């Protein structure tokens, strides 16, 4: 059991190393990257905006309902919403959601190519299939912090609307809290996390798809396993990054 995990971890790092060998023609690589940006980033924007808006709103309502002490200023609700959204919700929660959405898509598409011998076809032609299939995904997901920035913005909009239209506090109070003790490094921290999560989001599902064996059923199983492992590694690395950058 343990040896198979160690073997898989070794295989994962070998995959990352091999991904940079025998580079694909530049014009084709450019086309693949644009295609992946469309598939992985643009097609995920809808769900990211939807979730961000409502989670932002719920964070505000929950905070407001739990702050019953009259000595605590109402503006703290805006402050708490900002901190929750920027520090954890946007970079981490959205990344776990993306592990389900983008991760499953990557594993199933590469897994299906493995089952239907399309990866063998690339190899027979002399193409490095890892470079052709995985590297464009890694590069495309480097714009992932942009998704997180949008998630932060929409989350705060949701929080503001829930606060003001829900009658929990005034718009001025919310904005005051939003600007209170703002630490710009927290945004940088969120983007650093997002870059690391983006790399994990591209490579772990690719690993599970690329090295899968079997047929259609195994493609489904690989997608599930890839979601579980991507989420676990994101949560685990979130702890270390936070300890490293904020403590």
């Amino acid at each position, binding site marked *: 059991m343990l040896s198979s995990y160690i073997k898989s971890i070794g295989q994962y790092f070998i995959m990352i190393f091999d991904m940079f060998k025998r580079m694909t*023609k530049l014009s*084709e690589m450019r086309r693949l990257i644009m295609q992946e940006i469309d598939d992985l980033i643009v097609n995920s924007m809808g769900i990211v905006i939807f979730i961000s808006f409502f989670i932002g709103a719920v964070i505000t309502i929950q905070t407001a309902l739990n702050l019953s002490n009259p000595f605590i200023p109402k503006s703290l609700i805006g402050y708490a919403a900002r901190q929750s959204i920027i520090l954890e919700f946007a970079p981490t929660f959205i990344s776990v959601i993306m592990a389900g959405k983008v991760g499953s898509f990557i594993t199933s598409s590469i897994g299906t190519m493995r089952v239907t*011998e*399309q990866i*063998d*076809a690339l190899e027979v032609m*002399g193409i490095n299939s890892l470079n052709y299939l995985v590297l464009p995904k890694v590069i495309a997901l480097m714009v992932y912090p942009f998704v997180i920035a949008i998630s932060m913005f929409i989350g705060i909009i949701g929080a503001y609307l829930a606060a003001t239209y829900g009658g929990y506090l005034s718009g001025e109070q919310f904005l005051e809290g939003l600007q209170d003790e703002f630490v710009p490094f927290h945004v940088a921290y969120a983007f650093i996390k997002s870059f690391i999560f983006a790399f994990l989001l591209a490579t772990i599902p690719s690993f599970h798809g690329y090295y899968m064996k079997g047929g259609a059923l195994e493609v489904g199983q690989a997608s599930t396993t890839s979601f579980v492992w991507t989420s676990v590694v994101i949560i685990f690395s979130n702890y270390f990054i936070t300890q490293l950058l904020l403590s």
Partner: protein
Amino acid sequence: MIKVENLHKSFGDLDVLKGISTEFEKGKTNLIIGQSGSGKTVFLKCLLGLINPDKGDVYFNGKTYNDFTVEQRRNLRKQMGMVFQGGALFDSMTVEQNVTFPLKMFTKMSRSEMKNRVAEVLDRVNLVDTNDKFPSEISGGMQKRVSIARAIVNKPKFLFCDEPNSGLDPRTATVIDNLIQEITHENQITTVINTHDMNSVFEIGEKIIYLEGGKKAWEGDKDIIYKTDNEKIADFVYSSNLFQKVRVAQREGL
């Protein structure tokens, strides 16, 4: 020409290939036949370099993989075409894009030159009005033709086919067989076909190798396979009632 010398391959305790030696000649359709589990696919993958043999060598025009530099291996692969059992067409690409793919990746042809070459090859495999269709929108027989077109578009010197007519009706299977043979003769390609199909054996078997238990049990061609006294190959080839009757008729000179 491809020469295979004493090829061995094991997976764990299972010996799949046990010292196969043979030659595949240029301009001929060379068939590998045998029961399921006899090592045909592993043998073909060793020829393609997708699996490294444990022992033995495969020579392409006198040179083995080990003699080549990384760049030479890459160039050798550009000279290979492969028709996979399921076609292995790229789902996200149209028929035209699938066939253009090797040209885009490995040549410096202009767009118009590529278009002309693809039109020429699609015409050669009798595919019309399918350029903009996706693999899921065409029949199995058409997919095989697209796969053949993609395999030959870059004018390969070696063509490998893994059960090219499996899952096809007998008429389409014969068309595909004849197409592969014609292309082999026209372009003087060394073609190696992995098949279960006895029609293919009698139709295009210019050289036939019968594998059993990872070993070469018989070697010959379609003209002598009728007369063979080798019981193993006779049991395999004439396992159906129809072929048994054909054999009896052949022997009685009917």
